[in-house]
């Protein structure tokens, strides 16, 4: 463990014309740390995630990342090839809609093995072995390795997406509402799985969610966003049990109890 953060974000700002996508967002993320970004729809959560993944270019601010060799690099200064290499070896991106994150007409094994092939692995048996191993780890029956995700349920698709991303053992995973659209029992199993993987692999995660229960279960720290601005940050328990900002208080008190 080192004291240099894995990800360091400073003053990240992005505007869509005159509207604000996200304004002056700063935070540090250390190895193995889970940060939840919560807020209502349109608060800039997904914009922030896409900025981190270098899918959008910020108007101001920078994102620095500690590479495996220990050197800290400003991601904007890397060329596209280096950025994409990072994206498929060091990072994962779990999309809200699994159909965006998977190749729907390619078998589960092909989906899970794609990253290995993309980094140059050319041994069918080994790729298939690794894919099957990961399907088992995300609780998909390896016998279904040759089926396409079209025949999978929503929860299975989300788990396949996780397998596909984690197969190259990334250090940072970005998750965009991974549990929305799943019913609660499926959601609970997925969260359980993610929690297990986080401790097992020491993943750092930025998870965007509007579901405070998900945030409480998974994250160590929390960041509350509204209209593109961060209005409160802190340890998850503190923010949820003793919210400071009026908007956070509203958010916490709006949760329906079962």
């Amino acid at each position, binding site marked *: 463990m080192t004291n240099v953060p894995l990800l360091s974000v400073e003053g990240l700002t992005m505007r869509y014309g005159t509207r604000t996508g996200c304004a002056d967002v700063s935070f540090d993320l250390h190895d193995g740390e889970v940060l939840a970004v919560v807020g209502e729809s349109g608060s800039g959560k997904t914009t922030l995630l896409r900025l981190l993944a270098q899918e959008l270019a910020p108007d101001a601010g920078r994102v620095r990342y500690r590479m495996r060799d220990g050197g800290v690099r400003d991601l904007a200064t890397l060329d*596209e090839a280096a950025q994409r290499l990072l994206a498929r070896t060091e990072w994962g991106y779990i999309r809200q809609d699994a159909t965006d994150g998977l*190749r729907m007409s390619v078998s589960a094994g*092909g989906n899970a093995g794609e990253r290995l*092939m993309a980094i140059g692995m050319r041994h*069918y048996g080994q*790729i*298939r072995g690794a894919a099957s191993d990961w399907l088992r780890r995300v609780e998909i029956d390896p016998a279904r*390795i*040759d089926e396409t995700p079209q025949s999978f349920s929503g929860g299975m698709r989300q788990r396949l997406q996780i397998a596909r991303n984690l197969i190259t053992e990334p250090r940072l995973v970005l998750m965009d509402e991974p549990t929305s659209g799943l019913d609660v029992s499926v959601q609970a199993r997925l969260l359980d799985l993610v929690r297990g993987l986080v401790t097992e692999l020491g993943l750092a995660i930025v998870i965007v969610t509007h579901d405070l229960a998900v945030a409480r279960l998974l994250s160590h720290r929390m960041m509350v966003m509204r209209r593109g601005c961060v209005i409160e940050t802190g340890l998850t328990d503190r923010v949820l049990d003793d919210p400071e900002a009026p908007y956070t208080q509203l958010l916490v008190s709006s949760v329906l109890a079962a």
Partner: protein
Amino acid sequence: MTGAIGYNFAYLDEQTKRMIRRAILKAIAIPGYQVPFASREMPMPYGWGTGGVQVTAAVLGPRDVLKVIDQGADDTTNAVSIRAFFRNTAGIATTTRTSEATVIQTRHRIPEGRLHEGQILVFQVPIPEPLRFLEPRETETRRLHALAEYGLMQVKLYEDISRHGHIATTYAYPVAVEGRYVMDPSPTPKFDNPKMDNSPALQLFGAGRERRIYAVPPYTNVRSLDFEDHPFRAQEFAEPCALCGAIGVYLDEVVMDDRGRRMFVCSDTDHCETRRAAGHRGGAFGL
């Protein structure tokens, strides 16, 4: 050189030919890279070899001898028409003999006999982009080529093996050219892929509808993609050619009657005729 009256030599005007030659030169300089060009309307429909015809027109000179094959045969409609087209518009000599030709335009085959230095093989290409059916966005496929990200192509081969137990792609089998660009060798059978490697002849590819030209210069490394534990294998045929007895050549199936009789003969008609003229005989010769 007496072409058809009112037409420029080899149909296309000189400015167009210069434009195409520039694209060809660029393609040769970057083996396997698809160079965009301003494809012209040709007096034939797309899909009939408009790309190949434009490339041929741009490289033909008055002393060239042209051979045109379609599926290996010199006597199919498309081959006969294109040969007549250039005889009429360029007044050049044509031939069916592979060894005598200086320019060979082809659809779907590479001649069986080894080509020699100075020959140009022109392929008609329907879809130049090998990644097209995996990634529909042209902007994205170009980026993948630029960054040499070819994992996706491997995913297709992976899917083949997982479905069929072996790589079931039999034509348009993707190749890596000189270790860099992945290229679609046009719908030639994968049987012909090894012939592209280190060939003494210049290989030019023209896609008219898709407006792309690409090339494999002479003596260039062309490797068929595969897996370490599922290496590339060309098709093999169980029997020899029924007419000339050749083995190790690509065969066409010919249905003989309505009672299921069939025979397999060389797809390369010139190769078959040359062998028969030299006295080689297959099992069905003279039937």
